[in-house]
């Protein structure tokens, strides 16, 4: 089975979409086929991937409809640079989906159902979720094999991350997830070492997570080049290939690559 990686966080602006887009590019560049699935009604993956706004029936919302026939609406990303990365775009229609999920008899499991009925061919699927822990993150949780938690090194995001872990255990049990998704790790984001509270939180985050046996990846530094790159719909690696932040993603990509090789060989 493909690796299905859900990016979850319990606070806005924690860098989910940025991480999702960059991982999609880097894993594609490493030779894996990738599908980036945007479960956020804001559809920010489209912006950061340089795609035009999708037609409402060409989005993940259409996949979650009962009349879905298996024709996944995939759009190539950065096709000049990589050949094997596609996006399943999200948009405002997902707001309606949220309400439908609540009433649907398979609501919490719908994404997993679609993927087992009509599997995507890619090696890895990346689910980008909205910030609020509602029905959409829940379908990502029940469909994923692994979780990655981006966390901004600020009080609000740290608080949210603690609650996210509670949410994770509560819902893994409630939804009877078997096997349970694995937490791949936390990714500290937008880290600025000149800011005291950032240093402070980062320093206490790692021991805190290790108590819970959760891995803490190397922090991804803050840089306004991320914003500049996203305005052009590019990952920073295509916009400023020599920027020091490019290397910050390496440990995560290495970890996922290991998983992918393991799952291919087994």
């Amino acid at each position, binding site marked *: 089975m493909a690796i299905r990686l859900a990016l979850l966080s319990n606070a806005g602006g924690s860098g989910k979409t940025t991480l999702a887009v960059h991982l999609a590019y880097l894993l594609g560049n490493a030779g894996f086929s990738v599908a980036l699935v945007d479960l956020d009604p804001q559809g920010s993956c489209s912006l950061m991937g340089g795609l035009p706004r999708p037609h409402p029936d060409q989005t993940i919302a259409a996949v979650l409809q009962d009349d879905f026939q298996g024709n996944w609406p995939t759009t190539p990303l950065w096709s000049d640079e990589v050949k094997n990365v596609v996006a399943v775009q999200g948009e405002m229609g997902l707001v309606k989906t949220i309400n439908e999920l609540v009433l649907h008899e398979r609501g919490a499991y719908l994404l997993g159902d679609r993927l087992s009925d009509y599997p995507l061919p890619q090696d890895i699927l990346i689910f980008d979720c909205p910030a609020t822990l509602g029905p959409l993150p829940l379908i990502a949780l029940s469909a994923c094999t692994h979780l990655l938690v981006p966390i901004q090194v600020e009080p609000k995001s740290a608080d949210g991350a603690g609650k996210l872990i509670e949410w994770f255990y509560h819902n893994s049990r409630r939804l009877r997830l078997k096997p349970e998704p694995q937490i791949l790790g936390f990714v500290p984001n937008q880290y600025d070492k000149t800011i005291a509270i950032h240093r402070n939180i980062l320093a206490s985050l790692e021991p805190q997570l290790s108590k*819970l046996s959760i891995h803490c990846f190397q922090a991804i530094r803050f840089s306004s080049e991320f914003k500049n790159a996203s305005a052009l719909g590019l990952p920073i690696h295509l916009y400023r290939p020599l920027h020091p932040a490019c290397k910050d993603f390496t440990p995560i990509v290495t970890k996922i690559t290991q998983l992918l090789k393991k799952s291919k060989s087994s």
Partner: protein
Amino acid sequence: MSKKPQIDLSNLFSGAEYSQEVHALETKITELQAEIEQLRSVGSQQVETKVQELRSTLTSGGVIDISVEQIDPNPDQPRQTFSPESINGMMVSLASDGQQEPIILIEQPDGRYLLFDGERRWRAALQLQWGTIKAVIIPCPEALHRRVLLANLHRENLNPLDMAEALIKEIAQTSNLNEQDIPRILRTAVRRLERQGKTNQISEIVVVSPESQQEVLAELELNSSEKSVLSVLLSLQLNPASINTNIFPMLGLAADLKQAMRTQGLGGIQAIAVQRCNAKALGIKEAEAKKVRAKLVKRILQEKLSVAKTRALVSSEISSYQKEQAKGSTPSRATSMIRQVQEIAIDNMEQQELEALKVALASKLHEIESMLSPQ
């Protein structure tokens, strides 16, 4: 020199730790239970080792005496026949050596227990007319959540706001009351008990058995909602009067103060004191009042002010604003009229009503204008 920004992550993550612990324990118990059922169904000899493992996992939760009357045999027990000889043998052993191993029970939502392991010991205990039998308990999921809550409640650094929210959730779950009604229900009950001079009877039963608590509660004139709120609190060994005074008021705090408690470690009683600095008391806009509160919170934290000093600081802040207000104050009759006009709730009004109101206000405005500048 101002204090460096500090944040106590271990506090923010304590809930996460508890949920992970409970989850791990529950997973282990469920796995062992399933394995044992499986081994039993194939009649394997390994059952005993697994049962032993389950028993020792559960023993960490404590061995307790359970009334034999509260135990039901398991209808799924594969071994349905127990020969009188084997029961007799067990009776002899229990009578001479006592109970060596606790039996394993599954807790039921109705408060009774289902036998998982130890039917022979239980039947023998019944025949020996023992009142209770030593047991370890496989908790039902509800009880596990309660255990998390309990562990959390008696944690030193739990802030009163988190405690209030956890309690409200627990009460709402067990009683089907609306979350927002619970503080009011408790307040009404506590005030009535105070008037009747019966608060002592409540504080005396905080640490007695649930049965005795129920007996006392039954004698007080409480309606059913009040009774369920009080019994949840008492069953958690909390004094309802103190929850009413010290804990539930946290729920009414302004959002900025809740935030300060959670992320900066502002004390609950300090937060309540600062809450007095609201827009109305200071005679300024809410956004301004928020700034005043932020300034106060910063000072309280930096100087680690005691409750008494915090209260004094807040009072002097309020009186300084009130003096200013008095200086530039509008004549009193107009003030109350202005307030009435400002407070007209127009959110839910019909179009027609709004039109009528507009006409009335416009005509009054016209009158005022003509009074101010007579032609």
